[in-house]
């Protein structure tokens, strides 16, 4: 599935629909830096939240707050019901079954959960069922140079703990993952292939189908970092054929503090627990403990219930608008963002055509540091991100320490991007870089 395939049939958002969408996000109405309207182009870092999400959290605390999966009183029942309905909503949003969705504090925690499950299996935990996750010294874990640190460092650490070896695909000059050496990088020793669906720096859609096929040929597990795709594209995780996937609520109009690990049911059944304690057990004696079936086996301790409820509502909100239409709207925004290449001295890091790329555009301005670029934009009320966006190897690949990044979401307008381009046009003159 590519962005283009999913986008074509959907209708664009009308001006009045977009206005209604924006009216649903209270924060978008505020001003910054002395009364200037906010132009929020940092949704790839975190998105703003619609009223329904904010209200759902308040409603939960006002009406249903109780510990879930414990106690038989009415509130406990209602809280459990809200928590589990949210799981079902998030599951259906990505084409999964409820039992394939584990709540985590976020995508980073979800990826670490997978890495530590492999680690624990390697240490002999999880019995015969978990043998399939055992790593031997010399086994290989494959990532790409485009990864967010959240989908790189946990694998480096897993290698360090187990003696596995990290290998990776490079990135081409166009910012896309280079699979020309796929048959030498993915081979008999490959056990895990972990990669991003959409880069949070270049906006490029990764070669998911090719990597899944290559991993399957050698019997390796696939881990998809879906942080930047699930909020912006229709995503059907089982259809993509990945074994594991991770994404965070806060990037998809939901609250902070909650995210999801998706894993095929059969894998969750076989995985040893990672975080242990209350709520994830069956029988505990002083000598030994047996564990609950998944997903509870991976949800130790009191959960982030109100946030999970908010995430469920965010998924429903997006579902009602229709992800194909969201993607279509953002495709137009991507094209508008890419017009910064018309500004002298501006260079985009990543694909400069709209094919298979989303509305996340990182760039450098000749002679002006990214920090200074963003300061001038900020002065006009325009919020962009600067730095390495948690992807230092990718920045090193392009020989830059920092870039500025403008990213859109469903509530972003073409006018906002026009304002951004106008402000960017004046930056070099301000610093005397012309």
């Amino acid at each position: 599935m590519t962005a283009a395939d999913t986008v074509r049939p959907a209708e664009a958002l009308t001006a009045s629909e977009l206005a209604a969408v924006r009216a649903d996000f209270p924060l978008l109405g505020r001003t910054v830096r002395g009364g200037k309207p906010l132009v929020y182009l940092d949704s790839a870092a975190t998105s703003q939240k619609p009223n329904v999400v904010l209200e759902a959290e308040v409603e939960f605390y006002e009406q249903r707050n109780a510990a879930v999966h414990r106690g038989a009183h009415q509130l406990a029942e209602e809280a459990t019901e809200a928590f589990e309905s949210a799981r079902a909503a998030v599951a259906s949003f990505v084409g999964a079954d409820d039992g394939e969705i584990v709540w985590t504090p976020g995508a980073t925690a979800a990826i670490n959960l997978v890495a530590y499950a492999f680690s624990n299996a390697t240490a002999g935990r999880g019995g015969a069922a978990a043998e399939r996750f055992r790593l031997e010294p010399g086994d290989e874990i494959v990532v790409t140079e485009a990864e967010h640190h959240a989908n790189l460092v946990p694998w480096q650490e897993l290698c360090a703990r187990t003696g596995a070896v990290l290998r990776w695909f490079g990135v081409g000059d166009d910012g896309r993952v280079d699979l020309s050496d796929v048959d030498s990088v993915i081979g008999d020793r490959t056990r895990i292939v972990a990669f991003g669906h959409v880069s949070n720096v270049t906006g490029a859609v990764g070669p998911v189908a090719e990597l899944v096929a290559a991993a399957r040929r050698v019997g390796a597990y696939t881990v998809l970092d879906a942080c930047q795709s699930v909020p912006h594209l229709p995503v059907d995780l089982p259809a993509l054929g990945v074994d594991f996937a991770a994404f965070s609520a806060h990037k998809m109009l939901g609250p902070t503090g909650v995210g999801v690990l998706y894993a095929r049911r059969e894998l969750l059944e076989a995985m040893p627990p990672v975080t242990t304690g209350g709520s994830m057990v069956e029988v505990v004696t002083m000598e030994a403990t047996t564990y609950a079936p998944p997903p509870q086996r991976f949800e130790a301790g009191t959960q982030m219930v109100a946030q999970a409820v908010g995430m469920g509502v965010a998924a429903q909100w997006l579902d009602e608008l229709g992800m194909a239409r969201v993607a279509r709207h953002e495709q137009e925004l991507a094209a508008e963002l890419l017009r910064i290449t018309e500004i002298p001295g501006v260079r985009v890091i990543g694909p400069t055509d709209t094919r298979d790329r989303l509305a996340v555009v990182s760039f450098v301005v000749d002679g002006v540091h990214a920090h200074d670029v963003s300061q001038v934009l900020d002065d006009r009320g325009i919020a962009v991100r600067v730095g390495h966006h948690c992807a230092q190897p990718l920045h090193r690949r392009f020989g830059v320490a920092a870039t500025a990044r403008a990213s859109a979401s469903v509530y972003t307008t073409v006018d906002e991007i026009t304002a951004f381009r106008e402000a960017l046009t004046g930056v070099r003159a301000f610093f005397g870089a012309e």
Partner: protein
Amino acid sequence: MSGSLEQMYQQVILDHAKHPHGRGLVEPAAGHLAGESHQVNPTCGDEVTLRVDVRTDDVGPAVVSGVSWEGQGCSISQASVSVMTELVTGREIADVRQLDATFHALMASRGKGLDDDAALDALGDGEAFTGVSQYPARIKCALLGWAALKDSLARSGALADPTGGTDD
């Protein structure tokens, strides 16, 4: 552009950023204490490698006889190292400590500057960074060079020297 942006990017700062002082690492003079430090701002990747050269003799207190550096980063971090280089070269260690403390106080002033005019005057072009202190995210840019200076002085051994004014 609004007033506060212009307050931040004062002409002095832009000039220092364009034509920085002390750029290009220099070998320390024979017989002097020398120290080098590499500092990074992990959020934006700004970097500086800074070398100090400290002259110590029996006659008087230790003096920073040379500062040289290499680095890349935003105009605030580059201008700040440049201003600092000018300011501390030729100064006694005790004075350098005082300047460091004053600059840190200025950066903590949230755009208000310092009441102590004499202290502010002593900062020379450093006073131009008052506007930067309004922007919490940029304060670390301005302090990067100062962190490198402090660390390289410590590594040079000059701070342990009894003539180095450690009795403050």
